[in-house]
């Protein structure tokens, strides 16, 4: 029984094993910060693309939609090249730090938040447009109103972005380096510990990650239900 990996994993979790929880904490910090930054940039960007008509708008929408499926290793590679000693941002000395991991995840999540918020805001604008024009609102004035009125939909989008950030492994592995106690997060240590044959720790982290994904989806579901009741 005591050699059973699953049993050991549970005991690690229940005994609040310090290395395990350190890894979980860093994962959450990196992904939450990345999603926060991506939201501050991505939501206004999405709303702006929904509101303004300009040359090449169709191209911007196609690119945003395509980048939603950006492979994490490609995002990792791009950020690696930017941050490496010889790269344009090499002076920042961020490579193999949590900062680099945050940047890589922002690159991954930003297109998701921008593309999905563009859709939501545009849908809502179709419904509100005449009333907004009647009220004499400029496009710039419409933006905060639309973003606030789409708040429940955008919260679900935020969950989707966080799910993507916390579950990916390629980008953080490449730019973080999986350094113990510094840049080791859940996904990278699952890869490492599995390779080493340390299945209990890998499984324990797997359980935490799975639980997190469950909670995210439950949250998205509850937000959806709540908003349906609020807005009829």
């Amino acid at each position: 029984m005591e050699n059973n990996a699953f049993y050991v994993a549970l005991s690690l979790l229940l005994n609040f094993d310090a290395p395990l929880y350190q890894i979980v904490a860093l994962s959450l910090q990196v992904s939450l910060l990345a999603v926060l930054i991506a939201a501050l940039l991505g939501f206004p960007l999405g709303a702006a693309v929904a509101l303004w008509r300009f040359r090449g708008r169709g191209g911007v929408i196609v690119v945003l939609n395509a980048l939603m499926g950006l492979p994490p290793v490609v995002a990792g590679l791009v950020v690696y090249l930017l941050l490496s000693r010889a790269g344009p941002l090499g002076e920042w000395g961020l490579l193999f730090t949590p900062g680099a991991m945050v940047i890589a995840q922002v690159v991954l999540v930003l297109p998701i938040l921008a593309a999905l918020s563009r859709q939501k805001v545009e849908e809502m604008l179709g419904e509100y447009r005449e009333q907004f024009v009647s009220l004499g609102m400029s496009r710039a004035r419409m933006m905060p109103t639309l973003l606030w009125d789409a708040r429940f939909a955008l919260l679900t989008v935020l969950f989707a972005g966080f799910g993507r950030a916390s579950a990916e492994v390629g980008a953080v592995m490449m730019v973080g380096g999986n350094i113990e106690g510094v840049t080791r997060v859940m996904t990278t240590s699952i890869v490492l510990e599995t390779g080493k044959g340390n299945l209990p720790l890998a499984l324990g982290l797997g359980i935490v990650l799975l639980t997190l994904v469950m909670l995210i989806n439950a949250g998205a579901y509850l937000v959806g239900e709540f908003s349906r009741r609020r807005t009829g």
Partner: protein
Amino acid sequence: MTSMNAPLLASSALLSPPALRFDGVAYSREEKALLGPCSFTLDGIGPTLVMGPNGAGKSLLLRLAHGLLSPTQGRVTWSDDRTPRQAMVFQQPVLLRRSAVANLIHALAVNKVPRGERVKLASGALERFGLTACAKTPARVLSGGQQQRLALARAWVLSPQVLFLDEPTSALDPAAIKAVEAAVREFHQRGTRIVMTTHDIHQARRLAGDVLFLSGGAVREHTPAEVFFDVPASREAQAFISGELVE
């Protein structure tokens, strides 16, 4: 838009509302003429009821007058050479996904009413339209009649000089219709120019000061209500009033 305050309201009731003038206004989309060219002036005290069968161009005329659409020909002008404060109430009220009171506060904020005055003005309007009890209720879960009253309250807080209403009662039950008509009279008494479309001839009889009758994208008649209902001049209007199916 200018800020709104009580003295301004009191005096505006004494002045006649700004006159609306259509000068050869036409609207077409993809080569298809949908309205006009038509010319008329709304300078009486109103309310002006825009009547006519479905597809006659009533809503289009309202949207051109309000500036939601630009005419493809001709000009829409106002008597004092500047666009008056105006508001529009739609057939399906478009309400924000917020509480009733937040909808009014938003409209006030958009019109740059000082922050400190917004709540007071909003609660006043909610009270006037019998919505105080649902001030905190999400606007979109209100009943159809309450939603339309909230749309009227939103127009009210903006103190428009001109109010457009596009079939505001077509989806409502009799009690709600009565409330909307009472509200329209209140706007009228406050000196607001009312331009309202309806296809309900009884409603037009109850409210109209003058009638603008449209059919087939053309203005057939613009006459005082008594004249319109007693001795309609155009053949189309005669048929409409006698209950024939006019196209």
